[in-house]
């Protein structure tokens, strides 16, 4: 969290779909209620 109610994140994900797969490296922001 960098400010009240707000946070930033960065993450890596691997998704497997049998013989296919997807990888993503993403960053984002969240607003917390």
């Amino acid at each position, binding site marked *: 969290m960098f400010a009240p109610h707000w946070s930033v994140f960065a993450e890596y994900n691997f998704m497997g779909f049998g013989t296919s797969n997807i990888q993503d490296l993403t960053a*984002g922001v969240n607003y917390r209620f």
Partner: protein
Amino acid sequence: MRKSLALCAATIALAAGHAFAADLRFPPPGPGYLPPAFLPPALPNWSGCYAGANLGGAWAKIDEGNTVGGTLTANPAGVAGGGQVGCDIQFDQWVFGIRDMFDGTNLRSSTSFSAGSANTRTNWFDTLTAREGFLFQPNVLIYAQGGAAWTNTSVIVFNFAGTQIGQSSTNNNGWTLGGGGE
């Protein structure tokens, strides 16, 4: 002379007033005097729900051999972006949560094979994950996550003359593992 005396009296009265006000603002320490309490800043509370947006890079290995009647593999790379909603609950330095993230992508590729060529496009993916994180600082969470994943891939097949001879749109179910910092 009278004016000087009046001015002198007014100055003394004003100075006495200031001194009295100062005494009221800063009383001398004595029995029963408590200094003002120091209140540290409130620590972040990770329990609760959130919504947000994300943007990043994505790359894929696509195998749609059954769609075109032969071996078709592609390795597109591109951009993925979308939104996410989730909820967390905090126990001391541990945070547990669930989240759904939906991203659209521009993952595209064109592949030649024995009967022609095929364009593949990964239109979107969605992940529903549970995560477990540890607070190394009150406002820094490192986490791992895993769960279910879904994606949609379109394939358009062309013959050697460039005429479209087939297409498909396939939804696939799978799994996901990942991690990050927030």
